[in-house]
């Protein structure tokens, strides 16, 4: 289902700024991370917010980012991470 990403896959978050109820924070758009987990599929919140049924469901992935790659001036060790849940249509394999 969906773009069938697997744990360990390197992905890029779509750098796009559509209007509406978007659950992909701007600070990760255009950034690269690694798939940690597939949480299964859920109604698309972008459609639910419009009062629709949210179908087709979208696969939700947990993505890990290195803090030092998110923020060039990050003040902390290289091992610090940020984990975030992103729907499939915001992700593409690198």
């Amino acid at each position: 289902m969906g773009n069938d990403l697997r744990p360990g896959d390197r992905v890029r978050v779509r750098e796009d700024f559509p209007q509406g109820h978007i659950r992909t924070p701007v600070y990760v758009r255009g950034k690269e991370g690694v798939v940690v987990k597939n949480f299964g599929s859920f109604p698309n919140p972008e459609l639910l917010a419009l009062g629709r049924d949210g179908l087709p469901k979208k696969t939700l992935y947990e993505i890990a980012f290195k803090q030092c790659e998110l923020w060039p001036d990050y003040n902390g060790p290289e091992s610090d991470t940020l984990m975030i849940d992103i729907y499939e249509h915001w992700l593409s394999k690198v």
Partner: protein
Amino acid sequence: MDEHDDHDHDHGHGHHHHDHDHAAAAVPHAPPAKDEKIHTYHQALGLALKELLIEKGVFTPDEIRKAIEWRDSITPATGAEIVARAWSDPAYKKRLLADGTAAIKEFGHDMGALHLVVVENTPEVHNMIVCTLCSCYPRAILGLPPPWYKSREYRSRAVREPRAVLKEFGTVLPDGVEVRVHDSTADMRYLVLPMRPKGAETMNEQQLAELVTRDCMVGVSLPKLN
């Protein structure tokens, strides 16, 4: 139903001692002035919607009261009970980490359409929870989030400079410990399973639960022996 915890703004009128026009506002419990707006636009909108739904018979005022009562009955003590069980019962801990949603059902707690993900602190990893987009929080087991959790400062800084934020909560972690921030953006709600503190080996479940504060389960603090 959040209206009662949205009165946490301090507009700083207390500093204007010289300004007699605003003297009333400087006294926190002064009666409202004739032209003072009691509700913000959105509070008024919420109240109007509530009244319309009552009038239409969608629900009754008593049902709203009951819902608020239920909401208020969930406190961080609910979550602490779960953490204490995980500390005392390795099999429960395993179930909790594997499927938080199912494991809290054993206590009678229901995540509804949402899912609970429990993240474990270890000597190598410290977890911390934030919702940068709004105020997603495991309300089913911690109750309502504290005002600071919903503040723009926490929401932006927790992902940008987590170690500085942790330090302000009195939590200083060595560089060898990975700080792992979870930004809850979707259908998952996160709970931190803190490490059982040293010296708590002989405590029973009830005593352990008393060590587990809300902030420990959000991951901005660590359980401490009194």
